[in-house]
């Protein structure tokens, strides 16, 4: 044990490195999702309508969280002394991205519900060019429950 941290496991008494890494990944991922959605033209995933402001947010959030993460503690620590091993880093990276995705689709579904009122006939991510995530998801699930026999055919062919 070092500084009251757990040894080699995330779920110990307050592994601050794990919590800080998770927060930094989540904040960075929100920014990265904004950048990716902006470049992919997925308006349903954008917080703001201005492309410039979106891309600025997409750059500032990851940079700020990296600076915050490294400036607020000693991060190069062995996993035997309270650091994170590669499996823990991978798990927290996944959880941070998942959190950022849920946050992004929830907030953007609310703020864009009045803006995107004329969705195109597309499926999957492509529908997010002109629709919000939750509306697109509802549309996709309804379509699947109604027409699943016809729709499953192409999934078993190239």
């Amino acid at each position, binding site marked *: 044990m070092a500084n009251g941290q757990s040894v080699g496991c995330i779920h110990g008494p307050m592994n601050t490195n794990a919590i800080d890494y998770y927060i930094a990944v989540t904040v960075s991922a929100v920014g990265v999702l904004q950048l990716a959605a902006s*470049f*992919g033209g*997925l308006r349903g995933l954008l917080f703001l309508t201005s492309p410039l402001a979106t891309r600025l947010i997409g750059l500032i959030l990851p940079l700020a969280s990296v600076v915050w993460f490294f400036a607020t503690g000693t*991060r190069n620590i062995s996993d035997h002394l309270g650091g994170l091993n590669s499996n823990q880093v991978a798990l927290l990276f996944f959880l941070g991205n998942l959190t950022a995705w849920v946050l992004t689709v929830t907030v953007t579904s609310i703020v864009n519900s009045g803006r995107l009122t004329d969705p195109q006939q597309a499926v999957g991510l492509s*529908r997010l060019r002109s629709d919000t995530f939750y509306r697109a998801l509802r549309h996709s699930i309804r379509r699947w429950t109604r027409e699943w026999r016809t729709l499953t055919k192409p999934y078993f062919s190239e």
Partner: protein
Amino acid sequence: MANLDEAIFLRINGWVGTIPALDHLAGWLVSDYLASAVLGFSLVVLWLAGGDDKTRMRRQVGVLMALVGMALASWLVFVSNGLFFRDRPFIDLDVNLLFYRPTDSSMPANSAAAFFGLASAIWWVHRRAGMALLAVAGLHAFLRVYTGVHYPSDLVVGALIGVVGVASAYRLKGLIDPLPAMAVKAARILCLA
């Protein structure tokens, strides 16, 4: 050959202390967190930022193959660690160490295997992004020598394992072929692809 490896290591590691701010930055860049996050986020961007449906499908299959390739590379590193152990440079040499003291085998460098594997897999589906990420992986590898945790040959072998892992994943793609595309199509139902 071992002498050449040591000589290159000592030359590069000997630059530590020349510019203290650079040493501080190297500590950030070489950490277990930053380069892996950059490569991971590049997969997220590649997944989302396709043009038309066909391009997006090709890139998303590429992302899945990158993950399969990285898993294969990690397995190869795991196997080689069971067969072969090399001490870290700070065990045998007088080193300027800017990192903690890892206890696993110095060769092959598992970070190089993972990063070069991911970067080469991305290069397969997006040349420009792949080249940029290969540069990130190369910088990370150089800094692992600079900060005193690896010999240069550890990183070369690690990088080769990463590239071989990805190449093997693409060779195996013929066997599992409809599966990656089916996984992407299934994710489309949940508007995730």
